[in-house]
């Protein structure tokens, strides 16, 4: 159970390890253990009933949990649970992320599932991704070989695929000090405990009655959640009163490459995305759509 012996690389790898230091965790990860960070997707997403191989529980690693403000902005530890995000005292730009946190499954899942787990599982319907994209989030990755950082948009490469290298661990999400206010809307077939048909996140910074900065993202529509640069450019500089009316399909739909599946057809997803975005813009600029 205790992990310091793994630093020497000699002990036989136990089937379950919960190290306290990142150094130990990286040593264990380097030996092929499967990282766990809340386990809410472990059994549902594991093909085989037996988990097979060693399990590396990251939730006890010091410094991987909690949200802190640093000179580079905000640092959300990888094993910070969604319930902590929902209840955290964060600037209004994080309102979308906090709202998304309340939509990750039900309370039981929010109390166990973590930000890092959500990102690494890379489900196309991962609730955390769109709001983090609108916050220009970056991910911090570590392995025994060293550390690196990349934009979240580059980290998630496809459905259940990430840029995570063998033996590498996602240690934190870094959000550069964001401006403005954020919001999140989720469309599902039930009121709660539901996989999204479409979700949309937005962030708008208003200055002098005009949109100074806009960031929008749509998830669950395409293999990977996307930002909407055309829309963002169109909104920038507009008087707030005109912003919601500026939202149109042509600024949203081409970015999506929407998919059909058993939850919804592509056409509906595209249409609904536009509606959700318009409502977000209206809410964030103080008007009603």
């Amino acid at each position, binding site marked *: 159970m205790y992990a310091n012996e793994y630093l020497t690389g000699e002990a036989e790898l136990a089937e379950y390890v919960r190290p306290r230091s990142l150094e130990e965790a990286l040593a264990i990860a380097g030996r092929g253990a499967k990282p766990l960070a809340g386990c809410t997707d472990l059994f549902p997403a594991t093909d085989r009933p037996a988990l097979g191989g060693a399990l590396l529980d990251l939730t006890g690693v010091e410094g991987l949990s909690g949200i802190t403000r640093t000179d580079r902005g905000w640092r959300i530890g990888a094993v910070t649970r969604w319930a902590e995000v929902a209840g955290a005292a964060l600037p209004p730009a994080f309102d979308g992320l906090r709202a998304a946190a309340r939509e990750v499954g039900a309370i039981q899942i929010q109390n166990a599932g973590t930000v890092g787990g959500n990102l690494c599982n890379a489900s196309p319907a991962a609730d955390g991704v769109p709001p983090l994209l609108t916050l220009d989030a970056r991910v911090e990755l570590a392995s025994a070989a060293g550390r690196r950082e990349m934009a979240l948009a580059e980290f998630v490469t496809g459905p259940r695929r990430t840029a995570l290298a063998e033996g590498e661990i996602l240690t934190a999400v870094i959000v550069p000090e964001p401006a403005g206010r954020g919001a999140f809307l989720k469309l599902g077939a*039930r009121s709660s405990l539901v996989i999204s048909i479409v979700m949309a996140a937005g962030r708008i910074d208003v200055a002098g009655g005009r949109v100074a900065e806009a960031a929008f993202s749509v998830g669950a529509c395409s293999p990977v959640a996307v930002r909407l640069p055309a829309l963002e450019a169109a909104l920038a500089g507009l008087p707030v009163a005109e912003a919601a009316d500026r939202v149109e399909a042509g600024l949203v739909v081409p970015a999506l490459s929407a998919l059909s599946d058993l939850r919804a057809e592509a056409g509906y997803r595209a249409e609904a995305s536009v509606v959700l975005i318009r409502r977000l813009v209206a809410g964030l600029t103080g008007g009603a759509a």
Partner: protein
Amino acid sequence: MPDTLPFPPRMGSNAGQPLSRRDGPLKVTGAATFAADNHPEGMLYAVPATAAIARGRVTGMNVAAARAHPGVVEVYTPANRPPLMHDPDEKLGLFGMRMEALQNDSVRYAGQPIAFVVAETLEAATEGAALLAPEYAAEPARVTAETGERYTPERVGFGGPLSVGAGDIEAGLAAAAHRLETRFETPDQYHNAMEPHALVAQWDGDKLTLDTPNQAIVMACGLFAAYFGIPAENIHLRSPFLGGGFGSKAVPTGAQILTILAARELGRPVKLALTRQQMFGPVGHRARTWQTLRMGLDGAGKLTALHHHSTGATSSFDDFIEPAAAASRTLYASPAILTTHDGIRLDTGTPGAMRAPGEASGSAALEVAIDEAAEVCGMNPLAFRLANYAEVEPITGKPYSSKALRECYEAGAKAFGWASRPLAPRQMRDEAGMLTGWGMGTAVFHCPMFPASAEAVIRADGTAVIRTSGADMGQGAWTALAQIGAAALGLDPDQVEFESGHSHLPDAGVAGGSGHTASAGQALHNAGEDAVARLAELASTDPASPLYGTGNAGVLARRGRLYARDDESRSESYAEILARAGKPQVEGTGKGARDPASAETYALQAHGAVFAEVKVDPELGQMRVSRMIGAFAAGRIINPKLARSQYLGGMIWGLSFALHEEAIHDRRTGRIVNADFAGYHVPVNADVPEMEAIMIHEDDPHVNVLGVKGVGEIGITGSVGAVANAIWHATGFRPHRFPVRIEDVLPSLS
């Protein structure tokens, strides 16, 4: 308490009271033991391996790998499955179904058990099953109406007639001022009781103990016994609690038979607990229907013809055709009514009875069609239903044993505020801009009874024990049946011990068809009266008793005493009577069954009216039910608190039918793609509004001696239509397939 309260007319004072459920304390503390909670010493775990194709053969499995996995004790395949004494492909009795118990290598549907792994731990058995990695010779899956084989079944439901009708449909249509033909599709739905099907089998010689949830405890013993060539009495089936049944826990399934077989072969107790995913296939479902309604209407909005045809799906190897058109036989008056059925064979598991079989799917279609008819006639849907109110059962002309449907319409409409409903659709919005609509549906369910028996024993201390093998799957049998027994015995429920929930008791029949309270209740009622009569005989013939000479018909039982019917000052307690007679107890027995004469003379139906409010997002098409009120008339209500639960539960099932539930097959593989609770949606708490169920009293002297009709299923029947009709009223879009999808509604909104 004074002993001089007026005698209630027919029942004792405790039947009719809203008692809290007797099993409540066990259930809220976690002490109630469900089948899967049993862990006998030395127990092994069984896990079925299931087919990933929908039709074809298994050509190979890596049995060696599974056997070699640590902890695996035995792997059964068709190659080594020990013989059974009954062929799994032969039906048993009225309710038995063909099953898969490894009789050969064929695959008839995805999810079918194709091998069976037994191991020391659940994890080992599960991994062993995965290691089998079966190979198949697959044939194209037939899981759509287009690819399935159309056929004409012999019967529908459990032995019901294919076609029932009276009058000339074509003449009725020809004479009509308006004609309407409308088609509906209902989906595959899975019972999904929260408790997965579980069974723990333990053999002791040729005696078998089974811990398994079952809705027909004694009948099931007979079915299980047939596969093992033992007398039914050798089986002790214990089913004190069922974590929901809804029709899926009455007849044995292949995996259960294999579990029992493995326990015998291996000489150790074996437990089976299906996973949620494994419950999509081998344990029944409500099958798809394709329904057509043809209606003729005269200028006054009265039906001149009603033809309801339903095509039901069943499996390729067994027959259960949803008797959906039956809903149209009894509800609305028409000079010509015809209800017909046929079937389509698909590569799925065999469907079966699921909460309100027939009526749920059938009334979903009928109630929408009736609203369409009202629209054609420019009438308020309630006025239209009243204009076509059946004063006698339309096809047979029989009077109803009782029918307070008019009162249900009235009470429900009043509580809902129906009178202010605009006639045209898309007239209402709420303060948030949501399109708002009001809809209604008529609820109907027949009142079957099953043969049941019971015994009642009055003991020396004046208390009693009553016995019948009743099944409480949540409906409240432990409580309502005890109330009936206690009432017949002239005792408070607290003074009556109720032995139930296992097979070494008199047969309580089937807990299904909403008939358990009536059937087992009547048996208990008669047993209680029999025991009282024996006690009265003792007192009446004893010169030392104040009741000497009354004769056993000359007494009444109340609060543990017998009273002379014509002189209440003459009375004696049960304990005194037994003490002087030197007897430890008196015993009574009773039976419950439908009186054929009343079934011949009367139409026996429960009725209700459901009103729903739905809000629809005008841009997104999202639908939410925001209000639901039902009013039901189902004869005498034994326990209003628990009956209300049944009504509300049924109404939520109706909401779920209308908006959520659907198993979706992959057309290519034949597999169900949403075979878990993440994909197969049932409503969550946040989907359900505040609701009310109003109870309309009916005094029914004909339906049975208790006047009980049954409340377990009727709540679904009007509710699907009420929600669908409310969607129309909100949007102008008329749903014709269920569940109603956002994509269906959306085009009408733009």
